[in-house]
């Protein structure tokens, strides 16, 4: 923070700053349920998202840049997620990994499950699947990196501030892996 949220940098400086953020996404592994295993699988030998600069060595939220919420969020766990999110320093990104964290998934009618983490924290990328394959997470990361490469931090912070009281997805239009958009009602009405 500091300058980056007030000044519009000239293009070369902006490029370097964005490049740094793009390839150094230390990930806070918020593994909750089944999807956590696929998240770990995405970080280990065959899929290895460390290739893309997503480094899973941030053990605490303070060092993280990206929060991957993988698995079912329950009402009992929701305060912890909120807290972890708030502990991550700006600029931060959130990937919602798996149907449960997107919308409740197979536990949509449960009395103890939060139906979607976007009720608690703003989400940048939705990865659908139950659980999604590691490749889906890789695509989500690539799409997020594309977006980071183009964004302006000043606007990023302005949007965040505007969305401050309401979490949801007002920060920017979120990415949905595999196409579609979360505002696309045609799928729901089918």
């Amino acid at each position, binding site marked *: 923070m500091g300058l980056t949220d007030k000044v519009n940098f000239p293009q070369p400086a902006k490029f370097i700053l964005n490049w740094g953020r793009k390839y150094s996404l230390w990930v806070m592994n918020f593994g909750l349920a089944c999807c956590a295993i696929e998240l770990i699988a995405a970080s280990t*030998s065959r899929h*290895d998202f*460390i290739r893309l600069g997503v480094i899973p060595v941030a053990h605490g939220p303070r060092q993280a840049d990206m929060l991957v919420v993988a698995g079912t969020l329950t009402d009992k766990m929701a305060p912890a997620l909120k807290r972890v999110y708030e502990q991550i320093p700006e600029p931060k990104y959130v990937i919602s990994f798996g149907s449960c964290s997107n919308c409740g998934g197979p536990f949509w009618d449960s009395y103890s499950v939060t139906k979607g983490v976007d009720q608690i924290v703003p989400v940048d990328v939705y990865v659908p699947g139950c659980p999604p394959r590691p490749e889906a997470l890789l695509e989500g990361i690539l799409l997020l990196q594309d977006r980071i490469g183009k964004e302006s931090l000043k606007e990023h912070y302005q949007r965040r501030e505007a969305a401050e009281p309401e979490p949801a997805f007002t920060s920017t239009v979120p990415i949905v892996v595999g196409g579609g958009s979360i505002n696309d009602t045609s799928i729901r009405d089918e």
Partner: protein
Amino acid sequence: MIFYHFFSNPWAVFALKLAAVFIFFLTAPLFLGYVEHKGLAHMQSRLGPMEAGKFHGWAQLIADGVKFIQKEDIVPDAADRRIFMLAPMIVIIPVSLVFLVIPFGPAAVSCHAPAGAGACGFWGENFDVGIFFVLAISAISVIGMLMAGWASANKFSLIGAIRGAAQLIAYELPLVLAASAVAMQAGTLSLVGIGDAQKAYWFVFPQIARFIIFVIASLAELSRPPFDMPIADSEIIFGHMTEYTGIRFGLFLLSEYAGIVSLSAIAVVLYLGAWHGFFVPWIPGPIWTLAKIGALSFLVIWLRATYPRLREDQLQKMAWKYLIPIALVNILLTMIFKVVF
């Protein structure tokens, strides 16, 4: 002739050396960090960073650095603000000072520097008490660690810092004992002098035990696996670094890797014959030194991939029950040999 004039000006030499040391201090840890990324990855049948900088992710750590400077600088509410912000500096400054006295090569032949500026050669400064300077100053970092742990107002940080302090107290002694035996054998405290003294044979050969003690003690002092209890991630998150964000955290990381380089360098100078090579004497001294430092640092990385971590009390037991007695006996033997031969 212009070079002659340049090198005979002590201020110019000083500036040049300072710049060189500074560049080395910044690049060597980055390089080591990259090697750790890739080395660990290939040991674990993966690839490691591949995208940042396109060619095998060579710019991964630069990207990390660029990111660190953009991150929000959080100081927790309950933290002791000034001490919290000061701690990373206290950690990194001693580590950087060690680089000043590491000799990379022999004294230059055409050296006409006036007395007082130190003899001219591939080192920052040739202290008469170099070895004690190094050992004393590298122990200061733990104060920074304690400050960080205490000021963070986090229980995990505190436990980590206390562990780190306990570990340092336990391992400073074997480290000093092992190093002093070398000083005894070389007959000088100057690191350059110790390097010179190994012309005939490396000091690792007479007594391998002393070298092993030194390496173990340095690993413990650096809190590297298998002695990484102060930052044991699965127990206490990240130890004293738990609450640090952005560039302050980056400084901690830099000091960790710089610490590996500097202690490897000291070990090379003390035991592995500094700039003296073998078989291929035409390779210049500084390259030998760098290669040996690299090899030793790689060993440190290798250990991380192989071993689980010990428990704090087991480490203490090892220090007090085994390493210190062995080091003392070692000193005794060195004295006897020194007197007899």
